[in-house]
């Protein structure tokens, strides 16, 4: 191995990237339409929103916690965004800003409760999931908001150039911002330090409650952003938005090399994890898998993707030991 490849192979994202290349070759060999511009656009639309969802969970994993309320916050922000435009006639930008603020408040509430009570994030977010989802159903009565302006629909369904959808733009900004925050800003270092070893971080003078608050506020913001983007993509404010986020939100960061106990996450690994899940989901449709076995096959393929990455890590560690 050349030094460059050797260095790349040591990164968290190299394994998932290799899986993506392999999967793309296999799927497109069986069905060339997989690489058609329209399909690439569909794939990018799914990846754009899902990567924001995954980042929302990733920042909580970084601090060594779990946020079960990611979907509920996103769903509440989504119906608030659509509802504010339909009922109050707010302009889209103002409604989006209010929905994002709601996400931050919801995240801060989680963070505050966790910091103040010392109760595990699992329990607190389990409870807040119920509260946020209940508020969602109370507001919508399980009915979608249809009054989404044409400009919002166009944003969610048109392209910047070629197959690149407009939704990819906020997703790209989120990826860049997350990378910058986690690896180039003090707060990112604090979050990773608290996730790695809370006691050591505390002894080093890091304010653990402050790091927890920041992480949950960021998570709430990102979940709300995903909800807003989904309203644009789906062209309606559905009360069930967010119900299916939980598995993906954990699967993508884990495929991307995140350590669930905290302290180590990979922004690009998570992005590639999202791409892997999207490719697998599409492949199951393209290959006409029996609907009753789709979940089984999806689970097996995710295990395979995680396994490939783990195998790469083990081999790298052995090589380093030998060296």
């Amino acid at each position, binding site marked *: 191995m050349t030094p460059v490849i050797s260095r790349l192979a040591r990164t968290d994202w190299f394994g998932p990237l290799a899986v993506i290349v392999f999967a793309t070759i296999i799927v497109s060999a069986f069905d060339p339409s997989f690489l058609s511009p329209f399909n690439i656009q569909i794939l990018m*639309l799914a990846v754009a929103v899902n990567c924001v969802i995954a980042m929302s969970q990733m920042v909580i994993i970084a601090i060594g916690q779990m946020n079960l309320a990611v979907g509920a916050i996103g769903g509440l922000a989504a119906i608030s965004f659509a509802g504010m435009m339909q009922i109050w006639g707010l302009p889209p930008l103002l409604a989006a800003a209010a929905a994002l603020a709601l996400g931050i408040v919801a995240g801060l509430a989680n963070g505050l409760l966790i910091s103040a009570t010392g109760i595990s994030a699992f329990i607190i977010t389990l409870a807040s999931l119920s509260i946020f989802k209940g508020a969602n159903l109370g507001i919508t009565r399980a009915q979608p908001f249809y009054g989404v302006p044409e400009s919002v629909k166009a944003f969610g369904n048109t392209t910047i150039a070629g197959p690149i959808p407009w939704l990819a733009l906020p997703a790209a900004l989120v990826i860049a911002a997350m990378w910058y925050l986690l690896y180039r800003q003090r707060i990112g270092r604090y979050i990773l330090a608290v996730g790695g070893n809370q006691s050591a971080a505390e002894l080093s003078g890091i304010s653990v409650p402050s790091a927890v608050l920041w992480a949950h506020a960021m998570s709430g913001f990102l979940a709300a952003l995903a909800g807003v983007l989904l309203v644009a993509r789906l062209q309606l404010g559905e009360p069930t938005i967010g119900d299916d986020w939980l598995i993906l939100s954990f699967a993508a960061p884990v495929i991307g090399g995140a350590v669930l106990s905290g302290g180590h996450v990979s922004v690009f690994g998570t992005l590639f994890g999202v791409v892997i899940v999207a490719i697998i989901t599409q492949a199951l449709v393209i290959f006409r898998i029996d609907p009753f076995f789709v979940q089984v096959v999806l689970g097996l393929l995710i295990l395979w993707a995680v396994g490939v990455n783990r195998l790469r890590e083990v081999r790298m560690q052995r090589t380093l030991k030998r060296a």
Partner: protein
Amino acid sequence: MLRSESVLKMFAAAGLALAGWAAPAAAADATKVALVPGGPHPYFAAWEKAGQDAMKDFKLGAADYRVPQKWELSQQNSLLESLLSQGYNAFLVFPGDPVGSNSTVAELTENGAPVIATAGCLKEPTTALFCFGTDTGNSAYLGTKELIKAMGGKGRIVHLTGFLVDPNTQLRIDAVEKAAKETNGAVSVVQVIADIDAPEPAEEKINAYLAAHANDVDGIVTTAWVPAVVASNALRKIGDKRIKMVGIDHDEVVLKAIKDGYVNGTMLQNPYGQGYIGSYALDRIRNGCKVKAGAPFKTIALTNRFIDSGTVYADKDAVDNYVGSMQAITKKIFADFASTYLTCP
């Protein structure tokens, strides 16, 4: 002394709690109906209005629409038990599971609260009075027949349907297959995409399928609400009027797509009628009526006590009057419901 006071208080509290629990069993009070779907879904929204109208028209104590937070059997069961303890004494329930919901339904009926399985059936044996819903198999069959007609009697169909745990899904899959088989090979169902009765998976899978196979498909039949909405939008987006489509239900996205020519028609169901007539039937039962022995129930896969709440195909010409179509069905069923299915003192 303090101790004996505490014990007395404890017994008093327990007595009150028991009285509250036993309250639903007393049939003399006003009927309080809970209309409980399997989870949040736009299909059931008409139940709320139906309950309000029934409460007013039949002078019920309550007819409230109560939604579990998620499509999970355990959540629905907890909600039903909670509603019973709150004093609701009659239930219209969409079963979260055709077999799994039976134990909770039995718990409700043992406490004196009659139950009608509504919009979806329970598997026999069950203590529910009967099942009142769309003959989903028949609706899917008729919808597919309409689609085949629109396709000129030949071609390839993709079937987009709902939750696999929904008792109706397998019935729909079988019915679409049956309609295709009747063409002696001229029409084939090339794929069933299921578990997409939520917007995100529907968006992802339907678009992925059309991106890869739009040229290989001549028709789309959807037998669940959300896939109908998403497929209507997808056909509009790719601007393809070659692919024929028959949807289901009355979402405004689907209705608009029918008007604009992207969708050929939709199979209307009658959720309003289910909620309205169901609430009426429960009140009559609580006031002394019995289910008539030998009533002309239909037999379907899950039960031999099935009442069809009606279904009708609406195409471009009929879509503007869909509310009238649904009201007409309700009126027709309601007119002779009591005399057909109940025996009253």
